[in-house]
């Protein structure tokens, strides 16, 4: 707690440096989409605390207020959220990217839509705002196959990624949902992306037995945090093994060991979200410091040497 100012320069750069989708990162830690990244000043602050890059909140075509609170349920070992994709609409987001970009570090624009054209328009705007890359949030409800997500339809995923790759200059990152039967099929559909981001939240629900109803105003939400870490590891491992693609791992990372586990499963970089609730912003500095120490002790000279070493 408190009005903490932060951490001085980190001296692990040489050993922690990595690269993802052609973007150089001074360390493998990025802020995950949707956590403290709606306001440009918040992103700036996270970057000051040691994140090498930030991903913005997912932005759509038009302004959305999102769901009425409760939008989060804190659990013992994680968090369920249903923010409801609140966002100012792409027109209103230029300013925030500008504020965050004043850091000089990569700001990646997350976008959501329900058709390839919509994704393209959003991506072009993000590019024009100076985003270092776009991250496609493929987890919003899918109109064609209702109930499921855009990201569970391989044909649509292929169409979106293909169109964006043909029209954008900045890299395209495809963020996949874990709520699918066959993630490898989706990953292959997204093959043209410069890198894959795994995983988004796992669908979940919490009921208050005294109130006799779901807590979230939307009833359903997405589970994040330590509870899903080993689910994320499995997805990264499987997709890395089956596709060999560059991956950004995300889901339940709060210590250097979690980060190392994701890297050994095949991640070239990782994102941190929910740990900001449990550990505070210091999590970036701590994970960087401990990871560098671990790497030195274990004889790794760089992140690259660790990527996928556990994959057989």
């Amino acid at each position: 707690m408190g009005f903490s100012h932060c951490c001085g320069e980190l001296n692990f750069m040489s050993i922690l440096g990595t690269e993802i989708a052609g973007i150089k990162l001074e360390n493998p830690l990025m802020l995950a989409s949707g956590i403290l990244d709606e306001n440009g000043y918040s992103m700036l602050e996270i970057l000051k605390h040691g994140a090498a890059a930030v991903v913005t909140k997912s932005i759509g075509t038009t302004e959305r207020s999102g769901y009425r609170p409760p939008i989060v349920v804190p659990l013992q070992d994680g968090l369920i959220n249903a923010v409801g994709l609140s966002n100012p609409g792409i027109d209103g987001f230029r300013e925030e990217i500008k504020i965050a970009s004043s850091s000089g570090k990569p700001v990646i624009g997350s976008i959501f839509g329900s058709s390839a054209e919509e994704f393209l328009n959003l991506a072009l705007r993000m590019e024009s705002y100076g985003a270092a890359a776009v991250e496609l949030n493929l987890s919003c409800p899918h109109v064609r196959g209702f109930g499921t997500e855009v990201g569970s339809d391989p044909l649509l995923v292929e169409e979106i990624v293909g169109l964006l790759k043909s029209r954008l200059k900045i890299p395209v990152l495809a963020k996949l949902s874990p709520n699918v039967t066959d993630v490898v099929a989706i990953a292959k559909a997204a093959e043209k992306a410069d890198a894959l981001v795994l995983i988004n939240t796992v669908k979940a629900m919490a009921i208050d037995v005294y109130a006799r109803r779901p807590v979230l105003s939307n009833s359903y939400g997405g589970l994040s945090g330590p509870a899903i870490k080993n689910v994320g590891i499995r997805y990264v491992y499987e997709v890395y093994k089956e596709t060999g693609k560059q991956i950004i791992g995300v889901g339940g990372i709060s210590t250097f060991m979690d980060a190392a586990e994701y890297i050994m499963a095949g991640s070239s970089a990782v994102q941190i979200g929910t740990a900001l609730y449990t550990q505070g912003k210091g999590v970036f500095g701590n994970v960087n410091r401990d990871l560098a120490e671990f790497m030195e002790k274990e004889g790794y000279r760089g992140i690259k040497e660790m990527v996928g070493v556990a994959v057989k």
Partner: protein
Amino acid sequence: MINSRITEVEKLSQNTSTIRFKWDQHAEAGQFIMVWVPGAGEIPISLSHLGNEKGITVRSYGVASEALIKKREGERLFFRGPYGRPFTKVEGRKLIIGGGSGMAGLLPLIDEKSHGIVAARTKSDLLFHDRFPRGHVTVVTDDGSAGIKGLAVDGLKGLRLEDFDVIYACGPEMMLKSILDRIRDSGVRAEFSLERIMKCGIGICDSCSIDGHQLCTEGPTFSLEEIASMREFGVTRLTESGRRIWLGKH
């Protein structure tokens, strides 16, 4: 989610009530809880009463707060917390400035050495002006229906800032801004409790942020110096959707 049976509901005015409930949890002045009214919503409310039988004082603005003040003794109050950084305890003479329902969170600070400035739009909106030591409260209303006609900052006129060891204030941002501008060079120690939209209460949703600081975890109380360094204070904030708006212009 914690829940506790409501032990008492005290109606303070047409649209304001204090709700008491047992909760054996240490909490300090300036902290708040996220109160869930199933079916109506979840909103941040300051603790107006500490101790074992806690209390909140709620003014109805909309769906959730309205449902909340309709609760009765014996019903369950659902909430989580306590959240937020409390006011720093300072020994000595306190000047306590509250605008509207902002007085609720300041109530636990009032002691026999306090002086209050209690501001509201109109007389019936005044809150807790009767809790200060006799003769030690300045009442200010927008419409002059009670006390001085004017703004909270006008309540400072008759007072010597040097008489106080600390100033605590809570109210609408533009009220705080005018107070800040008035007192920033006085050298008196001051802490303000800010208000923004608060959706999560736990530092992840970014709805309550100001200059990269989350009100819900790093605030809602900030020192004068902290606030004075903020680029967004009194200037701009994000709406529910995350759209940046300029204060005082809408």
